């Protein structure tokens, strides 16, 4: 059995990604998974490879928690494929991959519906104070205090919603909020010829013209802190911001400051600049909704993800085109 394993295509699994517990039993007959758990072992990749991995590694499987820098990639001279379990690729040095001829596969549009559902869930929650009310009832209702004293929320239907990033997730968010009679406005890298929603090339101008911003774009050099103090102030008092993209899209310090000073109405965040650390001040606020980067984590998505990861690995080792290849920058 051990000998047979040696002839299976090798995949270095870093983390491991959450889906690996499900993936491994299903596909260990097809791939030789080599485990590298940097957090559990406090071991650097360099040390691990030197002491525990005498093989050449053609493929690596990781999640968005692990940063594949150029330095790390250089430790794997035979690497030809990176598979990430995330839709986002900001944790991978894509330029280095292109330079080395390493292919990259990500999750494509697999999670788009779940992430869009989460964006809408967070938006309704922060506007209508769902989590706050549930929390209040569970902790204070023992006195049976009258309910008409509960603070009112803000109406969502018919409001103007600014979407930052009209990719797969952004379009699903737009479709959902459209059915609430919301007016959709957007900012994206380029204006999209196929949609009729009003396009704003300036994020500040977009923020000025909407009641809530939903951030769903990819994180890269151009979009880092795309939501800065100027944008937040332009959005203004009583208005809301939702982030299901990456923490780095928002200047978190400024967001906390603006929330503290009442410059905006509230925020609902699935992602943070330094996960899993969430500023203590945020954790104490009543007009925010916080979730632990789980917009894509549904039971349904997990099964689909396992299939996709295995499919990409299989395709690669059979010299076929990847199912969800990532376009690498020049």
């Amino acid at each position, binding site marked *: 059995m051990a000998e047979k394993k040696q002839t299976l295509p090798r995949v270095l699994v870093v983390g491991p990604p959450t889906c690996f517990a499900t993936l491994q039993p299903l596909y260990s007959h097809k791939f030789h998974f080599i485990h590298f758990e940097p957090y559990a072992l406090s071991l650097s990749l360099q040390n691990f490879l030197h002491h525990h991995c005498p093989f050449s590694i053609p493929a690596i499987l990781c999640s968005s928690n692990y940063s594949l820098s150029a330095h790390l990639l250089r430790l794997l001279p035979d690497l030809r494929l990176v598979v990430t379990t995330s839709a986002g690729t900001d944790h991978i040095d894509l330029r280095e991959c292109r330079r080395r001829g390493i292919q990259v596969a990500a999750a494509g549009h697999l999670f788009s519906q779940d992430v869009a559902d989460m964006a809408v869930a967070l938006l309704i929650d922060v506007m209508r104070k*769902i989590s706050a009310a549930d929390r209040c009832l569970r902790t204070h209702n023992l006195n049976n205090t009258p309910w008409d004293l509960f603070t009112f929320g803000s*109406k969502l239907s018919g409001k103007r919603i600014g979407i930052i990033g009209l990719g797969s997730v952004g379009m699903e968010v737009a479709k959902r909020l459209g059915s*609430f009679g919301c007016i959709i406005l957007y900012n994206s890298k380029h204006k999209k010829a196929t949609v009729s929603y009003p396009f704003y090339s300036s994020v500040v101008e977009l923020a000025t013209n909407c009641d809530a911003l939903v951030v769903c774009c990819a994180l890269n050099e151009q979009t880092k802190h795309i939501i800065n103090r100027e944008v937040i102030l332009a959005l203004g008092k009583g208005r809301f911001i939702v982030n299901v993209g990456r923490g780095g899209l928002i200047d978190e310090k400024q967001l906390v400051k603006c929330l503290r000073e009442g410059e905006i109405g509230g925020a609902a965040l699935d992602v943070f600049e330094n996960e899993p650390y969430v500023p203590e001040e945020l954790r104490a606020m009543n007009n925010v909704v*916080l979730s632990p980067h789980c917009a894509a984590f549904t039971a349904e998505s997990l099964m689909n993800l396992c299939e996709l990861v295995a499919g990409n690995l299989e395709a690669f080792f059979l010299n076929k085109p990847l199912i969800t290849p990532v376009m690498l920058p020049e």
Partner: protein
Amino acid sequence: MESIGVLLVAQVIPYLEQELEKRYKLFRVWEYPQLPIEHANSIRAVVGNASAGANAALIEALPKLEIVSSFSVGVDMIDLDTCKEKGIRVTNTPDVLTEEVADLSIGLMLALLRRICQCDRYVRAGNWKKGDFKLTTKFSGKTVGIIGLGRIGEAVAKRAEGFNCPICYYSRTEKRDSKYKYYPNVVELASNCDILVVACPLTKETHHIINREVINALGPKGYLINIGRGKHVDEAELVSALQDGRLGGAGLDVFENEPVVPEELFGLENVVLLPHVGSGTIETRHAMADLVLGNLEAHFLGKPLLTPLV
């Protein structure tokens, strides 16, 4: 108009109370444990809400009562038969709160299936450092069953369709031109949907429309959303089913005996509990108040009522 007596039987938003005070001689029921006869004889209108209206006893005690104007769309707290008999007009606040309640219904579904309240608690308690949150249930594409395809039911359906949810419904009579699948009884509806939403008026017929049989038909992978009235649901049965795991979860904006919430629910993570906030935004409550005021004004000027039920 100041000599017209108006009896306020429930707490309403300050804006409405102030306007009523300005325009009429306003009596607040909580200030009069025993309403003196001379006041009772001057009262020509009652203003109530979802939790308090006008029963037969109150109507009898107000011989000059002409109109009951409810600060709600549901009028189950008003004895409509007695009002009809005595020619007393009844108005409510339809349409202006439809979107608000429908928005909240979807919010409840999402919060329940995606465990938003638990996610929020998880982060606030600092548990994320210990590990990822667990998997939740996808909402998009789940079948939504609606009891009562009126204004609110239709608005819920329209929103759920934005999430690719197939829609089915039960109502007293099948709606011939509806594109949604009709089921002739609630048990069948519950057996054929993932998420069951109560969106019908509370009447004698719909009291405890959600009973043990319906709950069992909905099942351990099914979810109940109540944005109607607490008495639509046999609350004891619901609590028991949730504790036993016979029902997947419940999102409740209303309870049988508000503001009492069964304590057993506080420890459950597959419920979302809200303090009857279906129409709870300033915008909507103002619009509802304007309807109450508009109906009263129209009545006392002898003009057609804006939103009469009786």
